[in-house]
């Protein structure tokens, strides 16, 4: 019974752990890392939804077309997710670098004033 929902709950748990990291973060690099953790929960959720008992990878390179396979749609979405995650992380880290240069700190609590 619990096995029927445990993978979904794991995804929710990873999401909340990542969010906890973002909320309590005292360093912007750590914030970006926590955001990456939060985002990785979506991979777990997507792949858990697509799993089929006894199913193999949805690639018919050397298997018969009648082999049961897991859902290819969510795998393609996870691919999109990974690409988006990596590029957004890069963009955010570039912003952190600028903040560190202009304000001399990466602690979000110290970054209070607006500066032109």
């Amino acid at each position, binding site marked *: 019974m619990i096995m029927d929902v445990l993978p979904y*709950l794991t995804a929710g748990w990873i999401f*909340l752990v990542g969010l906890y990291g973002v909320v*309590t973060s005292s360093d912007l690099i750590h914030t970006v890392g926590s955001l990456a953790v939060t985002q990785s929960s979506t991979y777990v959720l997507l792949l858990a939804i697509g799993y*089929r008992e006894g199913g193999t990878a*949805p*690639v018919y390179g050397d298997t018969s077309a009648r082999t049961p396979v897991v859902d*290819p749609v969510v*795998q393609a979405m996870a*691919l999109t997710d990974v690409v988006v995650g990596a590029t957004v992380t890069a963009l955010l880290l570039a912003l952190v670098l600028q903040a560190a240069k202009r304000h001399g700190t990466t602690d979000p609590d110290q970054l209070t004033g607006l500066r032109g």
Partner: protein
Amino acid sequence: MSRRVRTWVFLAAAAVLGVAFAAACTGLPDFGGERHPYGDRAAAAALRQQIANAVASVTFDQRGFDTLGEELMLFGAVLGTIVLLRRAPDERRVRPPRVRVLPSTRAYGTVLLPVVLLTAAYLVAHGHLTPGGGFQAGVIAASGVHLAYLAADYRVLERIRPTAALDVTHAAGAAAYAALGFAGFAAAAGTYLRNAAPHGTLRELASGGLVPAFNTAVFAAVGAGVVVLLAHFLDQALEIESAEERSG
């Protein structure tokens, strides 16, 4: 808001979200179940289109338009990073020092570089037959280039990494993907990004219609994009020096 209050507000919200999410999970189809209406249809469509890798079929054939969006997002993020990490007026460029590398490290890099590049070429060429594709191959090729930094030094990496040409390659890859979409109008009832080329025979190298072409375009965009992205971060760390660093 103080750190303490913020944590408590989060914990309260997390408890509500956690309970609601857990309740919602019990309404989902059981994990590992047999019912996958979208998956079954997507897999059947992949076989109908003679694309052995059903994930590639979904990415480039069935949801090609979404992948165009993904491609443009990648383009935008790389562009944004380049703009953010440009050299500021009060900074200057220094030449990174030459570094001594252990001969074993150098030999390891020299042996591994062709292996990595061959793996990337295989993944992009067989992306429609076996697991892989342009995105994965692009990241692998870009990592391979950086072996030069690990096994030699930054000057060597700069020699084998012409950033100006890679900027153009990145943009050209993204543009080629968008342009390939117009091939979809070749058929009678044509639509944008329709996989219009002949589909060939399942499991043969020449199959899948335009999917190998899409993979190649994405490979160029992602590979060049990742190298350019890392180049700007590495420049910041190794070459660009601020006024304080200079005096300090």
